[in-house]
């Protein structure tokens, strides 16, 4: 009797774990039980499903349904026969693509432009946000922020117009200024070596301000007493930026970086179309513009689908890799 009750007590109070948890053997549920629980759950929580529905429908209509058409990358597609009736040809389109110098060039151009974008375009909004954070005069800060947000709201066509005008060899402001120093006028937009700097610079000018909002929000979320404590400890503003602000917004930076890496193959296609010309194809032509010219303008939809699929596959691998690296080394990840 005594021995037995002692044994029971030990079981009930989980002597093994310090926080008093015990191993729980879940009872086996019958299918009927599970079903009725699911029904109850749905009855209680249906509002959540209603809220979820638009996102699910959007994904189906705009993401999953178009995937059906992706199969033409592996078919000899003809508009007249339709997607289903076109014959399978395996990887022939991919072989053709990788045999095409222009495509290979476009892949490398994409990577180079993206790398430059990542190198200069990614830190720009962070630096801008840190700089805004140091502006003490509230009125001036708001004014400056509004100014740098503006280009984001200007249509890409107008942005391209501004860039083309600014770099024009005759009346452009850039050549005018160069002229003051006695330099000869350069027709920048016909020079392949100038395309990438102009493109990346334009991207920063257009988006850095708007992109800084995310980081400013993250900075605003930092507990102010961290700074006060640092002030009493004797930290300078520079030290506070490096030792408090940047580490505090690091998770945000990492998330944004992962997203950015996922979009690495998606260089701003409209801006390139608007700025490039055959003279600069050697540096300006990227996979998307290649797909546009080959697929839509020359009617090779199946080839274009293959190139697009390749693009997506690379992006997918990159974002998964970036996410898992980040999860391992910084405890921050998108999923």
């Amino acid at each position, binding site marked *: 009797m005594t021995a037995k009750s002692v044994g029971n007590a030990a079981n009930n109070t989980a002597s093994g774990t310090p926080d008093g948890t015990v191993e729980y053997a879940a009872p086996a549920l019958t299918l009927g039980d599970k079903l009725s629980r699911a029904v109850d759950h749905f009855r209680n929580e249906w509002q959540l499903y209603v809220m979820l529905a638009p996102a699910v429908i959007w994904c189906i209509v705009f993401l999953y349904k178009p995937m059906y058409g992706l199969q033409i990358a592996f078919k000899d597609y003809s508009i007249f026969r339709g997607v289903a009736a076109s014959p399978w040809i395996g990887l022939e389109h991919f072989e053709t693509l990788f045999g095409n110098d222009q495509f290979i060039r476009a892949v490398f151009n994409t990577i180079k432009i993206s790398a430059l974008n990542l190198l200069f375009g990614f830190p720009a909004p962070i630096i801008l946000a840190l700089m805004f954070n140091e502006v003490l005069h509230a009125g001036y800060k708001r004014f400056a922020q509004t100014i740098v947000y503006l280009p984001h709201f200007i249509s890409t066509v107008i942005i391209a117009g501004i860039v083309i005008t600014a770099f024009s060899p005759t009346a452009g402001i850039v050549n005018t200024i160069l002229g003051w120093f006695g330099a000869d006028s350069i027709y920048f937009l016909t020079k392949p070596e100038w395309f990438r700097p102009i493109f990346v610079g334009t991207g920063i000018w257009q988006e850095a301000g708007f992109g800084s909002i995310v980081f400013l929000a993250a900075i605003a979320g930092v*507990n102010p007493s961290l700074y006060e404590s640092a*002030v009493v400890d004797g930290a300078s503003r520079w030290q506070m930026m490096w030792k408090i602000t940047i*580490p505090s917004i690091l998770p945000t930076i990492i998330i944004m970086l992962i997203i950015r890496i996922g979009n690495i193959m998606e260089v701003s296609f409209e801006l390139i179309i608007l700025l490039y010309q055959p003279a600069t194809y050697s540096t300006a032509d990227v996979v998307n513009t290649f797909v546009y010219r080959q697929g839509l303008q020359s009617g090779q939809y199946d080839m274009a689908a293959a190139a697009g699929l390749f693009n997506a596959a690379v992006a997918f691998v990159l974002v998964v890799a970036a996410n898992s690296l980040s999860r391992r080394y910084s405890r921050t990840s998108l999923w």
Partner: protein
Amino acid sequence: MTGVRLEGIVKAYGRIQVVHGIDLNVEEKEFVVLVGPSGCGKSTTLRMIAGLEEITDGTLHIHERLCNRVAPKDRDVAMVFQNYALYPHLNVADNIAFGLRIRKTPKAEIAKSVSDVAEILGLTEYLDRRPADLSGGQRQRVAMGRAIVRHPKVFLFDEPLSNLDAKLRTQMRAEIKRLHKRLDVTSVYVTHDQVEAMTLADRIVVMNKGIIEQIGTPMDLFMNPANTFVASFIGSPPMNQMPATITRSPDGYRALIDQVSVPLHNSLSVSEGQDVIVGIRPEHFSLKNDGGLPAIPLSLDLVETLGSEALLHATVDNQSVIVKTDTNGDISQLSNVDTVYVPPEKVKIFDAGTGKVIS
């Protein structure tokens, strides 16, 4: 030498003045607690000492050095914040070392100081942990560690215990007291909790609406409150306060509450017909008549049992009154109480107009 001296300290935010000229001397090595209701300007005063808020008017001396315009880092003070202000991306050791690193202290010295402080605070096992992986009490200790490690001239605490649960608060309170005994550094401690103030302070500063109501030792404030505000703020439950009028009887002055009259100590400088407030601490009533004490009849509403003590909620002439009494383990007789007794010397009289004590 004084540790911290405030003279005529005023703080205004724009055109709103929130601290109205405070004078306070904190002796070296003294533990002074600023206590008062929320919004009375305690934190603002403390932050002016730390240099986190500019001083609008008046002078601040720390160790006899004029500090009004001295940068926080050069005041040699350390502050412990209510929410701990720990750096979430740094582990305990790096959090404690932060201030020393900022000051470019040699590495070996930092390591020694951090391990000494961790030893004092019982944090040695946790040095590698991030703040997120610590309990509230441990975080609190890290925050203390960060202040101690710098060996400042003055410690400033802004409600350091108010994020802890009641039990932990009691425990940390004792720990802070022990720590102060051991380190012997001038400390200014802000709290809204009078129990914390009573238990920790060498001297308490009671603040209200941006002014100082009274400064004194805990016992001094408890026994001799300067006004009705201090009387109701210090002590738990607060002192009973009942409006009354002074009357004269053959054996001296009495305070007539309504029908009940309470005899007063004959040294009080009151005059007949004066409107006053009678203050009696709940614990100064007695249920037994020891040696001819004046009796006060009351009608009992409710008995709250706390264990060794009980609180009797009652009314005297329609004024609610709380009586605190020892139970001695037996509460069976308490519900029959209809009379209490109070020694005249324990009855405080305050001016009904100004609220100031009459002695």
